């Protein structure tokens, strides 16, 4: 039982890697990129949502926004710990970008990331009020829910485990958003505002699924870091979002 196989073949067959020492250079790079993107997005998301706490109309909403702010930062920390196993300096990493920095509301970033900051482009846009925050959280929360089906089965075992702990809490964030949105659409004025916010956020969240026919996908798939294509994930999100919004009459 001592025969081994090429690590790329092992990964292509669904193998799991368990330590930085197992990871070939290119794999390590792609894995770091994936983790950076998640950590930066959670930190930027948390920083953005911190403002939403003060937009909250009541105590219940204030607590929901605080919880999302807190837990997204916590999730960033958990993934950053896995990065630290690969030599990332945690103290330096978490201070390298200004996580609450935002571009102008009408800027058009498309799908591109901004310099070294690996956050999803949607997290560069500013939140302007409570309804705006809730809608953004619902749409991006459902997107995270879809992305988690990929992340919880990445081939780097210790990271997949962290994502499996995170996934139900991220799901709860989207649910909190849906509960908030339900209260907002109870009035006609609220509904009108929600419709406007959906029009703003929907294409920006969709951009976060990346480009169709991404050249990187095949590499990531071979490494077991991705399983479903950007197109598939986007379609699932559109479906999921359509269903939830329709249920609220939106």
């Amino acid at each position, binding site marked *: 039982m001592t025969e081994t196989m090429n*690590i790329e073949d092992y990964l292509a067959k669904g193998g799991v890697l*368990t330590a930085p020492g197992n990871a070939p250079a290119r794999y*390590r790079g792609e894995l770091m990129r994936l983790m950076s993107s998640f950590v930066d997005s959670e930190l930027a998301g948390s920083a953005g949502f911190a403002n939403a706490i003060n937009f909250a109309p009541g105590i219940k909403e204030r607590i929901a926004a605080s919880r999302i702010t807190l837990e997204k930062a916590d999730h960033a920390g958990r993934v950053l710990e896995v990065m630290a196993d*690969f030599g990332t300096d945690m103290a330096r990493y978490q201070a*390298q970008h200004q996580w609450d920095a935002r571009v102008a509301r009408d800027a058009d970033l498309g799908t591109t990331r901004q310099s070294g900051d690996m956050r999803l482009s949607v997290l560069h846009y500013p939140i302007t009020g409570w309804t705006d925050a809730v809608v953004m959280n619902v749409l991006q929360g459902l997107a995270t829910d879809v992305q988690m089906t990929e992340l919880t089965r990445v081939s780097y075992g210790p990271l997949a485990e962290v994502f499996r702990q995170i996934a139900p809490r991220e799901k709860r964030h989207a649910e909190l958003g849906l509960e908030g949105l339900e209260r907002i659409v109870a009035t006609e004025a609220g509904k009108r505002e929600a419709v406007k916010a959906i029009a703003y956020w929907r294409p920006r969240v969709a951009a976060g699924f990346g480009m169709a026919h991404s050249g990187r996908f095949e590499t990531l798939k071979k490494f077991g870091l991705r399983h479903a294509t950007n197109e598939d994930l986007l379609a699932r999100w559109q479906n999921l979002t359509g269903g939830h919004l329709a249920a609220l009459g939106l």
Partner: protein
Amino acid sequence: MARFHPLKVTDVRRETRDAVVVTLAPSDEHRELFDFTQGQYLTFRRDFDGEELRRSYSICAGKDEGALRVGIKRVDGGAFSTWANENLQPGDEIEAMPPMGRFSTALDPDAARTYLGFAAGSGITPVLSIIKTVLAREPKSRFTLVYANRQINSIMFREELEDLKNLYLGRFAVMHILETEGQEIDLFTGRIDAEKMAGLFKHWIEAEGVDTAFICGPEPMMLTVAQGLRDHGLGDEQIKFELFASSQPGRAKAKAVSRDAVEPGSGTEATVTLDGATRNFQMPRQGETILDAAIANSMDAPYSCKAGVCSTCRCKVLEGEVEMAVNHALEDYEVRAGYVLSCQAYPLSERVVVTYDE
């Protein structure tokens, strides 16, 4: 960042013809750093003819043994494992990083859990640490081990496993699968394949009620066992993997070029700015990246993947010329603007000036 610390070798015990068990003691000041969790490994480093090798070996001791112990099986052509098997002696010192790895589950003294372990060859080392710790710290839990080896005399920790069976009567079971030796039960002869997994679950192991399964061995065995476990109803969250030590890509670094060995005309005068402070130093034009040179000159330069992907180490070239070996991170316009990944950047000109601050 984790650093290397010296450990004193206090005992070297021959376990099989080609495996030793090495007991190590940290100095008093590092004792806490080397407090381990069952299933973790140590990474050692040693110079072999000027080339640094790093190798990881799993801890085989349980949490309650009060000792740090690793099993090292000799791998054909393996410089480190051969050296450990043939030359390592009590009294020697060896450098290691603090324990790492997440091959474990949280223990609960009140829990009555059922664990499965699958180990092949030296893959037993972390599993043994887990078995000993679980049996001692979760008095109501049970553990069943399926342990694959070529033949009887290559089984590591055979006696220790027998002792554990007697010590924890009824709570610990071992099934030896031997590749080249016939046994009374046919199922226990040969390699672990899909058929054998099905046979084990049919006659010997109750898949239902298993809380966690641990697998440690070479790649094909891990794939087969994981698939077998999934086929019998275990979820991914219930399966813990540890690829064993021989599956480490060669970590021998490119030969380090000594700073003293830089010949006139072949070196580069580097000026690096980081966090507002600027330093000047000489670096070779080959064999060392700007990042490594900056770190070697006591600058706390940022980096993460060192593979040209994550862009943590990005810096801007203000003067001179550099070449990147790999770039998966920077866009064309960034490269045109003078940005490079310092982990991949080698100087081409006699003088380079770079900054991490822009």
